[in-house]
Every structure is written in C-alpha cells, then in structure tokens.
C-alpha cells in the first residue's frame, strides 16, 4: 500500500499534441501554448510531459490531443476544460 502510493506520486502523465498539417491549421500552436501555460500555472512540469505527435489518422473537427493513450479532438478554446477534466483530476 505504502509502495503503491509512492508509485502514484511518481505518476508521469504524457500529453501529446498533433503537429500535422490539419491539426496545425485547426490551431495546434494555440493548444500547445495554452497547455504550456496551464502546466506552469499548476507547477506540474515534473509530472506532465508535453510532446509533439504525428498524424494518427483522426483528423477531423479539432486538434488531436492524446492524454495517456486516449485521443481527444478539441477546439483551441476548449483546452482549459480538457485540462481540468483529464489532467488535474488525475495527477
């Protein structure tokens, strides 16, 4: 139990944002910038790793953001909502 909770402290969340053509045109840069700001604001830089990602073939309505293996397609305005729901509650 003790060990597991230590393990939990060390949990490292990987957030990758697609930088392919479609996502770029739909606003990847704004999503990246907002994620960087939120991670800094919440002092999560040692727990959340941000990275770039290539097209996974889910091009559509929004920018593809993958959090721990699950891909979300979001508008640049929806970053805060996604961050609060999928990142803040899990780290």
């Amino acid at each position, binding site marked *: 139990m003790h060990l597991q909770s230590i393990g939990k402290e060390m949990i490292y969340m990987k957030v990758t944002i697609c930088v*392919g*053509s*479609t996502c*770029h*045109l739909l606003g*990847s840069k704004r999503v990246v910038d907002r994620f960087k700001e939120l991670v800094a604001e919440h002092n999560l830089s040692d727990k959340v790793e941000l990275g*770039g*990602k*290539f097209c996974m073939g889910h091009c*559509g309505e929004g920018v593809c953001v993958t959090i721990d293996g699950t891909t979300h397609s979001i508008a640049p305005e929806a970053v805060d909502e996604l961050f609060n729901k999928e990142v803040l509650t899990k780290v």
Partner: protein
Amino acid sequence: MNDLCIDSGYISLIKAGEQLCGDRVVFAADDGTAICVLADGLGSGVKANILATLTSQILATMSAGGMSVEECVNTIVRTLPECSVRKIAYSTFTIVKIRDQRYVELTRFDNPHTVVLRDGRNFDFAYAPRMIEGKKIYESKFEAQENDVLVVMSDGAIYAGIGEEYAFGWERENIIRFLEAHYSPDLTAKQIARMLASECNRLYHGRPGDDTSVAVMRLCRRRTANMMIGPPSSRGLDNLMLGEFFAQTGTRIVCGGTTNKIAARYLGSELTASLDYADSDLPPIYNLPGVDLATEAVVTISRVLEYADEYLSGTRLSASWEKGRDGASRIARELFDPATDINFFVGCAMNPAHQNPKLSLAFGVKFQLIDRRSKSLEQMGKRVSVRYY
C-alpha cells in the same frame, strides 16, 4: 560540356522617389547557352522602365534564338520608341552569353565595364570596339573557369556616393577592390549581387540617386537536392519510392507526417516531433536521423512558395528566409541557393484530411504546390525533375 553550371542572380535598386526601376535584368537559357541582359533605359521611372524592358526582352529573346549582335542592335534601333524630350531612342545594355559553361561572349553598349573575378581576383580581359548602326559596341570573348564570377552593373553602381562619400562616385576600381575583399567561394550569385547593391545603397544613404542594378553569373559545380513529399498511391509502391529516393546523391528533404513515418520505417530510425515553434504560423520541424531535413508538407511548402516569389522579384536587399530556423526557411536555403539540380519524389496518395471544408485548402493542393514550385525553381535556372508514385 563540363560538369559546371551557371548560378545567376540580380538585385535592382529603384531611384529614390520612383515607383518603377529604369533598369531591367533578364536571364534566359537556350540549348547550352546561358544569357544575361542588363538594360538601363534613358531617364528614370515609367519611360526608362519601358525602354529597358523592351531592350532587355528583345536582346534576350534574339540572343537565345542565336541571332547575331548586328541583328539584335538593328532591331533595337528600329523598334524603340523615341524620347519626346531628347528625340533619341536609347537604352544602354550589356549582353553576356556563356556557351557550354565555358565560352563567354560579352557585348556592351554604354554600360560600365563588366567585372570578372577569377578565384576571387580581378581578371582583366580585352575589349574590341565595333560600330553597329552608328553605335559603338564593345565586344569581348574569353574562356571561363570554375568559380569565375561575372558582375554586370548599371551606371548607378559606379556613381554611388557621388558628391558625398566620393567626389566622382564609387568608380569601377573601388568596386573591384570591394568585390575582391568580400569574395568567398561559397557566396552565391544572388548573395554577391545583394552584397554589392547593399554597399551602393549605403553610399547613397539609402536613397539611390539613380536606378542601380547588379547582375551576377557564376560558374560552379552542380549540386543535387532531393525532396520527397506524400506517400505513394498504394502501399505496394512504398519501397520503390523510398529505394529510388535514398539511392540519390545530394541533400535529402522529406516533407509530410506520413511520408516521414514511412521513411523512418524504411531507415529503421526514430522519428520525433518537437513543440519548438521557430515561426508561429508554421508547424515545428521534425527530427529524422538519416535525412538532412524533415518537415510537415502543405503549410510549410506554401510558405516556401512565398519565399520563392520574393527571391524572384529581385528588389529586396534582405531575405526573410536566410536566417530563419523554421522548416520553410530551411527548405528555401537548401533549394534556392546551393542546389542546381532538384529531384522531386511525389507520392500520389489522396490525403482525406485535406478535403475538410474547415481547412480552406484547395483541391489537389499538393500537386498545385509542386507544380508552382517547380516553375519557380526553373525560373531560378535550376534543373528540376519530378517523379510521381
């Protein structure tokens, strides 16, 4: 035929207060002969521009068609409109013809003497005068060597700084000294032209007293750049396309996310994407060991085209792509300057994402881009080949 090629470039500065340049530089090529014509129309502004444009186009077209100097001058004298003030039809000109990357023929009428640098030092050559249609034409012939640089100027260059920095203007001797001092074998024709024109502009205190043009031709070794863009129309063609791409010598550039993925698989190396935006409007470049440059495709290449238009317009002293770390600037630096032969490997797979109406991408955007870019590069004097898969 040797394995040299001719790199050419020019810069024209417009006389302060004018909208149009009264000098005109035209490059043309025909069947192993490279041609450069620099014409300087009488006066400045619209009238000079029309005279210089007519003169340079007529001379370039006729010279490329193999017509003699007499025929060219004859045509000019009979076709140019007369100046209503001065009652003469007049535009000075210099014609440079380089056959088989070796035999140089210079024909000059009232323009400053062309400067030739051989291994960075002034190379003196003889001129013989001849009267054609009452005009005194100077002609010269010599054999060029690798690294020879021919610098053709309008008189705005030699008069730069007149009455200010220099009593009689900059003069040819000083220009030779400047070129010798700043010469480096890896400077491209365009860079040499820009360097000299910038100095003239400085001597004019940023307000040129006359249209000033510098056109440069340089003999250099051929260099190849290869660019692959888009996955092939069917998976079965992957290995064919990649095999042919990686069999080439020269620089290798891979554009497109999926294209980079299949290249990574072929090479067995790891492809990574960073979030480092060197330019906020362009996706970051990728990293793929085994190729010289890996980037996104359509957005980046659209920007490369803007840079190509800027390069071809020839009136800017500084180029935005010369220092940028973004993918488009880096592609421009590889393709515009050192490369003489460019091979495109274009995969024809349809990208369903490009059909998204939210993206404002034109139908068949990739092919339009390749087509427009091949044309721009050909205008820069490059040999372009395109293979589709």
